[in-house]
């Protein structure tokens, strides 16, 4: 991408929160248009990424998901469908399976739940983000992408309240903007960025600490 543009007017300046370092996990939520957005974003994580990446993409509940196979071929990181009680491995992308909520539990390990739909969705972005915020606190980066419902707004607020960093896709560039707009309404995110700049962020976030430069982004 070109030189980063000025931060979105609604975005709080990163300086208020200190530098975006020490990230151990990234949670990503997306719905309508999300597949395309993820295709641009997930390959941006380099094989040196030590952070774990958890993804909820709203998918049909009644059939197996092909996301893992699809992204395994495109990504430098290992890509898996989340299994219940699996210990979280660094540098791994976990997709929530269809018809289950994905949560991060103490350990950290993965947990699935068959609880009620949240915002008509299972998996729900709120459920993932809230549980990850509990476990990772300020070491978490939460990202809300394109989508046509309100799932994720409360989750992103929980990430913020626990001291984590929050990013939303620039609404003008989202295929469906409802989800990012609801997230922005609830809590003003740290960054509002087009996909290209989120990809830039992913290239440098949560790198193996022995390799991290310590140079702030931006």
């Amino acid at each position, binding site marked *: 991408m070109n030189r980063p543009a000025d931060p979105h007017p609604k975005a709080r300046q990163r300086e208020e929160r200190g530098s975006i370092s020490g990230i*151990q996990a990234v949670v990503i939520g997306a719905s309508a248009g999300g597949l395309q957005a993820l295709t641009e974003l997930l390959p941006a994580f380099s094989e040196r990424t030590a952070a*774990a990446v958890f993804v909820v993409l709203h998918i049909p509940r009644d059939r197996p998901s092909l996301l893992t196979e699809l992204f395994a071929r495109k990504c430098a990181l290992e890509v898996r469908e989340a*299994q*219940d*009680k*699996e*210990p*979280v*491995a*660094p540098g791994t992308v976990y997709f929530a*399976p269809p*018809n*289950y909520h994905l*949560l*991060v*539990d*103490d*350990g*950290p*390990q993965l*947990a*699935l*739940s*068959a*609880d*009620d739909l949240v915002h008509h969705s299972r998996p729900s972005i709120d*459920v993932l983000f*809230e*549980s990850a915020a*509990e*476990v*990772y*606190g*300020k*070491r*978490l980066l939460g990202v809300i992408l394109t989508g046509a419902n309100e799932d994720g707004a409360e989750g992103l607020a929980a990430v913020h*309240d*626990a*001291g*984590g960093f929050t990013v939303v896709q620039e609404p003008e560039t989202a295929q469906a903007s409802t989800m990012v707009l609801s997230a922005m309404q609830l809590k003003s995110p740290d960054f509002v960025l087009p996909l290209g700049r989120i990809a830039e962020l992913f290239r440098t976030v949560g790198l193996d600490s022995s390799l991290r430069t310590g140079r702030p982004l931006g």
Partner: protein
Amino acid sequence: MDAQVEPGYTAAGRKFEIEFRLLIEAIYHLYHYDFRGYSAASLRRRVKTAMVRFHCDTLSQLQDRVMHEPALFPVLLDHLTVQVSEMFRDPSYFRSLREQVVPILRTYPSLKVWVAGCSAGEEAYSLAILFREEGLLPRTLIYATDINAHTLQRAEAGVYSIDRIAGFTVNHRQSGARHSLADYYTAAYGRAMIDKSLRDHIVFSDHSLATDSVFAEVQLVSCRNVLIYFNRALQDRALNLFHDSLCRHGFLGIGSKESLRFSSYDRAFQPFVREDRIYQKGAAT
């Protein structure tokens, strides 16, 4: 594991964590329901939604009400435990039972089945219907257990909202049904009532996988989407009960995204229909 997390708790998060532990202890000591071995992530979420429902700003307030308003506890228990399932949820599971497990069950002169964590009874009735269609029901007794007595009453009533029936019917058909689901219920006033003659083969009973022990020898245990709510120690306890309860070469069915891989019982059961999470008791050779 190597991704050890130093929790980056805020002060508020730390207080919540303390209050959460205290609430679980209070419920255990006062009402003898043991949530101490539940997966914290799911339980935290349910406790948080309970705070909203009971208009409590803090978990300490909720604990105060739990301790001093006895009428509140059953409502909270429902909130913490009730699971909405479907009849014939994951039809391929039932199809595999029908096509691969039933032929072996046929060789037993009498059959006992344990549906552990039966909630509102959908799964127990599904199995009763499947066993009737396969001609096994007359010699079968199904134990359907749950920790929540209120839920068990609902299960025993066998009444479901009529708008859920369409989904149940599709699932049933995909499970390899031999009859129409409509043969097994009567509809009236927006409700569907399950045929009483199915219920005659089901014993609904109060049982906790956390604190109770084995009560019968069974040929099949179906426990789906229950173990995901337990931590590993409690999951192992439950699997131990299933293992002790099952006859030699008995069958265990778990949820479509559950796995024995992260338990101590990985080797005590062999995959029988791997993709549908049906296992058979007996060590791999």
